[in-house]
């Protein structure tokens, strides 16, 4: 918990979210150059912009320039590398992920400035401002962390912590009270419990949309009949003419992916070919790809258009969609019906139970509402601190999962129970970053209330 003036490697997106153009990822601390060179796959030169591709292992993420500032001549006074790329927020998140997997950790609010201060890069007059910044951002971050911990996610995290605590209570009781006839789990039972905890970790990371988003971007697919305006919608949401639009049905053939921010929410929007039976082999392929995309998406925007539109027609299409992914693995995508071309005619009354939004891709009417519905579906607020708070939760979950794995290995490898306990306590400490620590005294309290102990 004592994180002030740590000398570890931290990273964060240095440009404010939602701004286009160049995005900067900043890395500060010992080893910054070494780690950055792995991403850039080439040597960096002091204070010189080096053009390179940013890669995670073999996968190309972006290209741009890398700048290395050796200590102490940098913003923070530590070794700093800035990766300036063109990719949007999803790509930036992927770069952060790659950095974290190489040993960096996500910076806390104000941490760069704080380090700058401690290394004498800011004068005393600025100190107060830094302190204020830390306290206000940490309050915001704390609030954000609490917000992300509502509902399902929170229940699952709490359940996970409870399971680990229960196991620790048993393991620690076995260690500290061997003379008591405690009903300590048999080895097999502990293995089972650990396996269940590992699985629970996986589920929760998966279900924290964030996990998916951070690794591959939240996928939103535009699906619908030809000519309803899917490509037009993509252009309208992206704010640029990314897709070709014509009045010829079957214009879009291949998948078109665009990364963009919707209310600060980074998503990957995928335009697809209009669904219909076609003689054209190219179009057939396009339709096949569109169908495949349905199963991969986190959210499907089912686009329909007035005037030929009925409530039952919409329901039929939803039904068809559901059948598409009924056989697929993973959770089914959320469906949001987008009624397009409202500038031509008023939309018919649709069943209130069907989640829908009415828009005109041409005039832009209804787009704001569509965005906020999309955002709600994705489970996000537009609060950037909340976004990073959740990123940190996922980070902590992953670190904890690795420890639980390690304790399972220790147990199966015939190592002492105190080593199993050691890994478990580390796991709990990581989870403690989400919900607060479980102290030794809390644990002992549980032991005393659950087991009859004492002379």
């Amino acid at each position: 918990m004592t994180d002030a003036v740590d000398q570890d490697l931290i990273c964060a997106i240095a440009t404010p979210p939602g701004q286009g153009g160049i995005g900067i990822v900043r890395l500060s601390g010992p080893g910054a150059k070494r780690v950055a060179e792995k991403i850039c796959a080439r040597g960096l030169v002091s204070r010189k912009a080096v053009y390179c591709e940013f890669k995670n292992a073999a996968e190309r993420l972006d290209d741009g320039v890398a700048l290395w500032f050796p200590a102490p001549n940098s913003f923070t006074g530590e070794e700093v590398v800035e990766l300036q790329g063109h990719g949007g927020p999803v790509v930036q998140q992927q770069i952060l992920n790659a950095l974290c997997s190489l040993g960096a950790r996500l910076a806390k609010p104000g941490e760069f400035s704080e380090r700058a201060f401690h290394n004498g890069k800011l004068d005393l007059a600025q100190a107060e401002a830094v302190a204020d910044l830390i306290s206000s951002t940490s309050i915001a971050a704390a609030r954000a962390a609490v917000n992300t911990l509502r509902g399902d996610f929170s229940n699952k995290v709490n359940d996970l912590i409870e399971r680990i605590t229960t196991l620790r209570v048993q393991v620690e009781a076995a260690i500290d009270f061997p003379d008591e006839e405690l009903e300590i789990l048999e080895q097999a039972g502990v293995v089972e419990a650990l396996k269940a905890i590992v699985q629970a970790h996986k589920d929760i990371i998966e279900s924290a949309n964030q996990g998916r988003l951070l690794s591959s971007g939240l996928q939103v697919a535009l699906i619908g009949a030809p000519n309803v305006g899917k490509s037009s919608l993509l252009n309208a949401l992206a704010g640029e003419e990314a897709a070709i639009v014509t009045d010829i049905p079957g214009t879009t053939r291949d998948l078109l992916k665009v990364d963009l921010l919707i209310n600060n929410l980074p998503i990957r929007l995928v335009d697809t070919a209009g669904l219909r039976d076609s003689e054209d082999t190219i179009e057939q392929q396009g339709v096949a790809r569109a169908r495949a995309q349905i199963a991969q998406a986190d959210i499907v925007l089912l686009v329909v258009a007035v005037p030929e539109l009925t409530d039952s027609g919409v329901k039929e299409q939803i039904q068809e969609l559901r059948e598409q992914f009924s056989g697929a693995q993973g959770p089914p995508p959320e469906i949001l019906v987008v009624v397009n071309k409202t500038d031509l005619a008023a939309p018919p009354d649709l069943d209130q139970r069907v989640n829908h939004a009415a828009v005109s891709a041409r005039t832009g009417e209804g787009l704001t509402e569509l965005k906020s519905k999309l955002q709600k579906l994705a489970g996000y607020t537009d609060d950037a601190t909340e976004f990073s708070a959740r990123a940190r939760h996922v980070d902590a979950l992953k670190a904890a999962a690795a420890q639980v794995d390690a304790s399972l290995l220790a147990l199966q490898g015939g190592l002492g129970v105190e080593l199993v306990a050691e890994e478990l306590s580390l796991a709990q400490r990581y989870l403690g970053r989400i919900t607060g620590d479980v102290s030794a005294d809390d644990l002992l309290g549980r032991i005393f209330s659950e087991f009859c102990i004492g002379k």
Partner: protein
Amino acid sequence: MRYPEQFDVIVIGGGHAGTEAAAAAARMGVRTLLLTQNIETIGQMSCNPAIGGIGKSHLVAEIDALDGVMGRATDQAGIHFRVLNSSKGPAVRAVRAQADRALYRNAVRKILENQPCLRIFQQSVVDLLVEGDRVVGCKTQMDLDFYAPCVVLTTGTFLDGKIHIGHEQHPGGRAGDAPSNLLAQRLRALPFRVGRLKTGTPPRIDGRTVDFTKLEQQPGDDPRPVMSSMGQRSEHPAQTQCHITYTNDRTHKIIRDNLHRSAMFSGAIEGVGPRYCPSIEDKVVRFADKTQHQIFIEPEGLTTTELYPNGVSTSLPFDVQLAFLRTMRGFEQAHISRPGYAIEYDYFDPRDLTYSLQTKALEGLFFAGQINGTTGYEEAGAQGLLAGINAARKVKGQSFWEPRRDEAYIGVLVDDLINLGTTEPYRMFTSRAEFRLRLRQDNADQRLTPLGIDMGLVGTQRRQHFQVKMRQLQVLSEDFARQSILPGSDLDAVLALNLRKETRLLDALRRPEVSADGVAQALAVDTNDEVAMGVLRQLEIETKYAGYIRRQDDEIAKIRRHEGMQIPPELDYLGIDGLSNELRQKLDQQRPASLARAARIQGMTPAALSIILIHAKKVVSA
């Protein structure tokens, strides 16, 4: 009358804290006086006649590593030794010894009486002599004033001690001893927060009235462990047996039917008792579904027939004690030689202490032992040692020794106490130590003896013993790093390694299936050679834990770095925006000396630490 001689350190109380404190200060060469109510009760075990156990023998090993009393006395008095957790890893293994009460007392007394620089005087202390905000000495019952710049108070359960048996109660420091009421009154007038705690003890039984043929036996371990790192089996007196019996539904019924007559349940006791040391009435109520409880029957000594039935501590009236005891197997005819009782006493909120165990309010005054809210001989001894050391260091004008949590259980104990306070008598458990894998009984000497040598606490004998061990360990580990095993070689076969490539002996030892004993046999080392085997086992432990320990190094490096970040004492916490009100109050009250200490304050957040550090830097550079 003013006693004609001036002292450097006065220790009040000859219990487990007091004896360690007095011996430590004297070992460091300052003029020390031990003042205690009764010389006959020096080193008296108020409760069960056992030393050690999990977490506790770790403390004893640390006291021992600094050449303290407890480990040595235990080897001279132990009549039944066991290794606990022998099936688990070395970090959580512990030694527990039943001690002959009289032999233990004698051993302690003998060590003290042979200690240069130490005087002992039998008198009850009734007052502290205070000048301004510092202590200068104390006054005894017969109006004798003793002067010294440092005073260590270790009066155990005696301050306003009140003994309860059923609804009857009387003042007492423990059965048979008078309480210290005058001193308690006086201390209450000083600026310390005082609370009440409670503990209890079972009735003792005359062994001649017990039918041992009906009881399970529990022999000591073979090979028999020793408590002190310099201990020898040959020092041990004759060994004896413990026995085991159980409570049953008749026992429980009698207890349940008479709950209203228990001091604890009738509300007569305001003090809080330890959760891990519940009375039998507590156990019966809280774990109603348990049909029996295990009772260890421990001998009180070799020359007495008295037995200590461990597990039936109680404050029920005598007639109920007798009735429920007699329901148990083997106890059908049991005669109680001393009734069980509960005792309530004053303790001082340990948050009023600093890491050195000096009180914040009065310079030169140190508190140690049960009066700080702890329980147990080992916990008391460890604090006594620390307070004695620091009193002597203060006299010598040296800085305090303040062991960290990653260095010693003593560090964990003090850090927990002064930061978290306590609401029940505090006992050590290994689960309290986050650096448990380092803080082992087996390496206590490696952790602390060098420090002890530096501080002038360690005698020649121990120093030489330690240096020999360290040299051997070094030679052995170099040897193991150099030697390697070839696949298909004899060693490979004997150790059942199934090697695929040449492997260093040291790396083979890292494998869970390879043990020191296995290697000893393979290398034809004499397994009866205690010294050689000790060193080999040490190497095995270090090798097996190496990866885990290295992982903790980062964490510890961080703590040390934070320790180096001093916070100026004059920092105005109340004026710092961005800290919660609660934190501001705590910081203002505790005034942590370093960032590491600030980090230990409850409710501290990383952001708050950052803010404190920024303000600390401002003060320094202003």
